[in-house]
């Protein structure tokens, strides 16, 4: 009984975005002409990349398992970044958390220093993330942009409130903007249009659709990503940007991964559960279209790296 497999013919293609280069290792992501890892319809020329989160301040309230895994490296972003590279990171995602008004309120000068240090410590492509407060993001991202001129960093978050200045910095210094919107296909598209209107090339934009962790909104993220990717494949140029998901933070900040006491016995071993929390979140979002997943635990890096290889096989 010969079975005729229905194949989808897609007209669209996800943009290819390059990070790094110019003396630094480079990586290209995106370029899909098919849904994630579905070989029957089209091609996935580049494997999704693993970015590893590195913070410029010792993280407060982290799960003891993360703290134990990274040890002293957490005290110095350069050391941390090197270790992340050893563990298999494709990209370093440096978070300038100390610039948050409630977590140090540092400014452009400190940001410059940190970025310089991390860029010197590793030769991987680098993503710079601000503290998630639009004005402060502006300040530190613009500083980081000039330090990293020509090295094709990715700068985020570029949101409705600050996209002009972040996009302008990307144009001036040859970087990629991370356009972040809250789990909404129309808002995502709209922000891409606004950024392109300023003059940033479409292949210098990544989309962050906003991650809900497992048990905390993952189904919304999962579905909005599937819709964004389907729109891109149908041929909508303004949703054709590769996607990045902040998996580590959104998984490890949940009680299931963080709490050390006062949890029901039915939850089982803490570390095993926490790793599964991050790992399942990552695999699910890779399956719905993530081109970069930002991870936190070294064990998850290894597991997801392996899973990506197998999905690409």
């Amino acid at each position, binding site marked *: *009984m*010969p*079975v*005729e*497999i*229905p194949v989808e013919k897609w007209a669209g293609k996800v943009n290819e975005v390059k990070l790094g280069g110019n003396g630094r290792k480079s990586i290209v992501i995106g370029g899909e002409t098919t849904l*994630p*890892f*579905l*070989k*029957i319809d089209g091609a996935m020329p580049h494997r999704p990349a693993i970015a590893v989160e590195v913070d410029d301040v010792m993280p407060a309230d982290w799960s003891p398992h993360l703290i134990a895994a990274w040890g002293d490296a957490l005290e110095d972003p350069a050391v941390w970044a090197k270790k992340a590279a050893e563990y298999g990171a494709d990209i370093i995602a440096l978070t300038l958390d100390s610039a948050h008004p409630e977590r140090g309120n540092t400014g452009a000068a400190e940001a410059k220093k940190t970025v310089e240090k991390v860029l010197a410590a590793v030769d991987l492509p680098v993503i710079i993330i601000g503290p998630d407060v639009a004005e402060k993001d502006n300040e530190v991202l613009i500083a980081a942009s000039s330090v990293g001129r020509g090295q094709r960093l990715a700068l985020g978050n570029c949101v409705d409130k600050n996209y002009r200045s972040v996009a302008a910095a990307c144009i001036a210094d040859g970087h990629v903007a991370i356009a972040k919107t*809250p789990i909404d296909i129309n808002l995502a598209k709209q922000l891409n249009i606004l950024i392109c209107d300023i003059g940033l090339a479409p292949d210098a934009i990544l989309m962050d659709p906003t991650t809900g962790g*497992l*048990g*905390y*909104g*993952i*189904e*919304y993220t*999962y*579905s909005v990503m*599937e*819709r964004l990717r*389907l729109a891109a494949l149908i041929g909508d140029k303004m949703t054709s940007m590769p996607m990045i998901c902040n998996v580590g933070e959104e998984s490890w*900040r949940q*009680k*299931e991964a*963080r*709490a050390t006491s*006062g949890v*029901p*016995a*039915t*939850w*089982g*071993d*803490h570390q*095993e*559960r926490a*790793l*599964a*929390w991050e*790992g*399942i979140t990552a*695999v*699910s979002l890779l*399956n*719905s279209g993530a081109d970069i997943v930002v991870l936190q635990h070294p*064990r998850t890096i290894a*597991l*997801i790296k*392996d*899973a990506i290889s*197998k*999905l*690409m*096989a």
Partner: protein
Amino acid sequence: MALSGIEIYKHLPKTNCKKCGFPTCLAFAMKVSQKAIAITACTDLSETARAALEAASRPPIRLITIGGDSRKVEVGNEVVMFRHEKTFYHPPGLMIKLKDTAPLEATLKTVDEVANLVIDRVGLKLSLDGFAIQNESKDAATFARCVEAVKAKADLPLVLMSPDPAAMEAALEKSARSRPLIYAATKDNWEKMAELAKKHSCPLVASEPASLDELAALTQKLNQAGVEDLVLDPGPQGFSSSLNTLTQLRRLALKKSFRPLGYPIITFPAETTGSPEEEVLLAGQQIAKYAGIIVLSRFSPATAYPLLTMRLNMYTDPQKPIQMSPGIYPIGAPKPSSPLCVTTNFSLTYFSVATELEASGFPSWLLVCDTEGLSVLTAWAAGKFDAEKIAKSVKAFNVEASISHRSIIIPGRVAVLRGELEEELQGWKIMVGPPEAMEIGSYLKRYWTN
């Protein structure tokens, strides 16, 4: 699959005899397609036409029930490729594999643990579905004894795994009344397995790793032998082949209405993975990507919980969040002097807070505002959780009658509401709680006095 009026009309007698109460057969067919009247209202419908219509209106993926009256799993009958298109309806069964060679005592201990695993989440009770018992011993009596013992310990849905029809028969003698899933009919033993499935009215797995062509050939033979309740086993599937093969199967069923492969799928993620950690990741993928029954090689609550959560998330209706009715909820046995907290009516939010309050040692009042099922920040950003809404809820639910003090604790993530709320609730003390619910206990210890 809904049939169009024209498709139905083709099967009618076309005599326009009017006995159905409609002027013409075509008019009648149109009404049937709109589900306004049952096809049985045509008095002259032939047996063959009725059978053809029934077959054509069958769901593209057959609904399969495993298990008896006390506990069962229903899988299949999905109608979309992507959950946003409508919803995923029948969550995959998560089964733990047991081997009949293991010491019975150890097996029964696991059975007990699995059966008693109940995880509270969002007000729901999550648990695993049952067991897949493998006839590793290759001995019929040992297999039957193990199945009988497991069933006596916990009457959960079972998958019976043996290539040997004699062993299967022995195990079915002990368990057939609770409709176990028979694993599996292959091209070597299908006739005997089909007999057993019919005799005991149990669903049957068609297992054929060679290709989908051969799998379809096998299901057709089983259909011809009179077995309709089938589950597909397309062979061991790693990350990539699982995604590709299961997607193809779903597409064939939904887009081509390809009956021979229109059945739910069973997977064994451990078969292709090298470690328990990896098995869990593949199982996670298979929950979202089209598995009907997932057999896990080992039981661990630490991985069962995230998988059950994943299943819950993927199979919720994307159109409406799970929500609570707004009101004032007593947590523990609060007194008028107990703390008052306010939150939104998204179930996930409510239960995150209620659980922590319960554990805090402070019986409390929890005021739940109607935010149309949105979380704290989502509702705030959407203008559905502001000072005015909170003040209105305080009035609407007559909070002042329940409590003797005038303090209200708001979620830390909406600390900005404090000023406006002081305006809205004159004479009240507005307290800003911590951002995360898990910090409520320590917050109350520090800041709640009376």
